[in-house]
C-alpha cells in the first residue's frame, strides 16, 4: 500500500476556441484516499476528461495543484505508479496482442505477469491475434490489459466502457473487481449512474466544470436517480398518492398521474397494491442530464477567465 492518495486543489482549466475562452474545469477540490475506488460522474462536457488528463499530466492546469501519492503527476507517471486507459485511441498495429502487452509491460519497474493480465482481462484466446484485427470491444479490453499490466498503484479509466457491448462491459467490471480487491486506488470517469453506483466506493458528481456533489453512491443515487411513474388513474386524491412509500411528488395530467419517485421499486408495489385499478403504467428514468440540470440550476453564465 502506498501512503497518501490523490489531492486536487482549486484546479482550473480553460480552452481557447474560436468562440473565445471556454472554461472546462472551474476550481475543483477532490481527494482520493489510497485504496479507494472513486467514480467521476457527469454528463458530456462536465469536465471529467479534462480533470483526468490533468491528473495524468497530459494537460497543464491553468491554476491549482495536483498531488499523486505525494508526487507531481509527471513524477508519479515516471515512477511507473500510474496506469491509465484513456477515452480515445486504438492500438499500435503490426503486433500480436501478447506482444503489445509485453512491450508496454517492459516500460515499468514492476509489471504484472503478461499471461496473468491476459487471463484477468479475458483476452487469453486473443493473445496471438494482430491488434489491427480486433473488434471494438476486444480493442477496449486489450487497452485495459495495457493499463493493468503496469501494475499501477493508481489506475485511471476515462469512460472505459463506452465502446463496449454488454458482454464486454460485464467482463470488464468483473476484472476490475478482481483488480481493486488488491488494494489499488482507482479513479474512473463515467456517465452511467449504474456503473458509478455498482463499482465505486464514492461518487464525485461533476457538471459544467464544478463538483456538485461528493459522497457514497447511495446518496448520489438518491439525488439524481429519480424515476417517474405515470399511470392512468382518474378520480384519486393526489395527496394519497404522494403519501405512498418512495414517492416524493405527485401531479395530475388529465386522467393520468405523474409520480416522482426516490425509490420507484417501493412506489410501484405500493401503487398497485393500493390502487389495483391503475392502468397504462410507465416507469421512466429522469436521465442524468435532466437530473444535473435540476442540481446545477441555471448556472451557465460564462465566467471571466482569470
Amino acid at each position, binding site marked *: 500500500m502506498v501512503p497518501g492518495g490523490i489531492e486536487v486543489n482549486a484546479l482550473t482549466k480553460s*480552452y*481557447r476556441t474560436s468562440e473565445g475562452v471556454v472554461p472546462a474545469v472551474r476550481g475543483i477540490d477532490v481527494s482520493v484516499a489510497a485504496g479507494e475506488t472513486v467514480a467521476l460522474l457527469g454528463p458530456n462536457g462536465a469536465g471529467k476528461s479534462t480533470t483526468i*488528463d490533468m491528473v*495524468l*499530466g*497530459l*494537460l*497543464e492546469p491553468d491554476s491549482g495543484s495536483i498531488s499523486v501519492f505525494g508526487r507531481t503527476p509527471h513524477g508519479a*507517471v*515516471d*515512477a*511507473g505508479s*500510474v*496506469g*491509465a486507459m*484513456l477515452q*480515445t*485511441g*486504438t*492500438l*499500435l*498495429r*503490426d*503486433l500480436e496482442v501478447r*506482444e*503489445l502487452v*509485453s*512491450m*508496454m509491460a*517492459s*516500460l*515499468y*519497474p514492476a509489471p504484472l505477469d503478461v499471461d496473468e493480465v491476459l487471463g484477468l482481462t479475458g483476452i487469453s484466446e486473443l493473445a496471438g491475434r494482430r491488434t489491427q484485427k480486433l473488434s471494438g470491444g476486444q480493442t477496449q479490453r486489450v487497452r485495459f490489459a*495495457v493499463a493493468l499490466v*503496469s501494475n499501477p498503484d493508481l489506475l485511471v479509466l476515462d469512460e472505459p466502457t463506452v465502446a463496449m457491448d454488454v458482454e464486454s462491459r460485464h467482463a470488464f467490471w468483473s476484472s476490475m473487481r478482481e483488480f481493486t480487491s488488491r488494494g489499488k486506488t482507482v479513479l474512473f470517469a463515467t456517465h452511467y449512474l449504474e456503473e458509478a453506483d455498482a463499482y465505486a466506493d464514492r461518487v464525485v458528481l461533476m457538471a459544467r466544470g464544478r463538483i456538485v456533489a461528493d459522497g457514497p453512491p447511495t446518496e448520489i443515487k438518491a439525488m439524481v436517480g429519480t424515476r417517474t411513474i405515470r399511470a392512468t388513474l382518474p378520480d384519486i386524491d393526489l395527496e394519497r398518492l404522494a403519501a405512498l412509500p418512495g414517492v416524493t411528488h405527485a401531479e395530475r395530467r388529465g386522467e393520468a398521474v405523474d409520480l416522482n419517485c426516490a425509490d420507484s421499486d417501493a412506489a410501484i408495489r405500493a401503487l398497485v397494491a393500493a390502487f389495483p385499478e391503475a392502468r397504462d403504467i410507465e416507469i421512466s428514468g429522469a436521465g442524468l442530464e435532466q437530473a444535473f440540470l435540476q442540481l446545477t440550476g441555471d448556472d451557465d453564465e460564462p465566467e471571466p477567465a482569470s
Partner: protein
Amino acid sequence: MKRTYLYYELLRTFRNRRFFFFSLGFPLVLYFLIATPNRNRGNFGNSGLSAPLYFMVGLIAFGTMNAMLAAGSRIAAERAVGWNRQLRITPLTTRQYFRAKVITGYAMSGVTLAALYGAGTVLGVRLGAESWLKMTGLILIGLIPFATLGIVFGHVLTPDSIGPALGGTTALLAFLGGTWFPITGGVMLKIAEALPSYWLVQAGHVGLGGHGWSRTGWIVVAVWALAGAALARRAYRRDTQKV
C-alpha cells in the same frame, strides 16, 4: 528492460510488408531499371565512375534517405490513433522514445543499404574492403540529419499529408543533391552543397576515391543534424501539449 521495447518496435516495423516492399523494393527495382542498360559505361557523365557504381551510390542516397524519413510516417500514424498519449503516461522518457525511433530508422536504412550493395555487386561493382567500410561509415553519419527530420515531420504532419510531403521532399532533395545526374558546377553546385542529400551522395563518391568529406561537408551535415535535432525536440514538446 527498455531493450524489450526496442525489440518490439523493430519487430512491428519489419513486419509491415507493404511498407517494407515500398521502402526497400522501390530503390532496388529502380536501380536495376536504370543501371542495367548502362552497365558497361565506364565514365558516367564525367563523374569518373562506372554507371552501375554511380547509380548504386545515388540510389543508396535516395533509398536510405527514404527509409530514414519513413520513421515520420510511422510516427504520424501512431499519433493519429492516440498512441503517443498512451506512451506519455508510461515511464518511457523522451530520450528513450527518440532513441527507439532513430535505431528503427537506421535498421530500415541498413537493410536498404545492404540490398543495394548486393544489387551493385550483381551488376559488377567491385570495391576494396576499405572503400566499402569508409563509404558505409560516411553514409551512416550522413543519415543523421534525415533521422531528425523524419521525427520532425512525424510530429508536425498528419497521416494524410505526410505521404505527399515526404515524397516531395525526398524527390527534391534527391534531385538537387545529385542523385540522378552528376552536379559538376555553377549555381546548382552551390545549392547542392548546402543540402544534406548532396553529402549523402558524396559519401558514396568520396568513399570510393579514398578522400573524406571536405570541411564544408562536415559542417553542412553537422548543422543540419543539430538544427534537425533541435526542431525534433521542439516538435515533440509542442505536439505533446494540447492547446
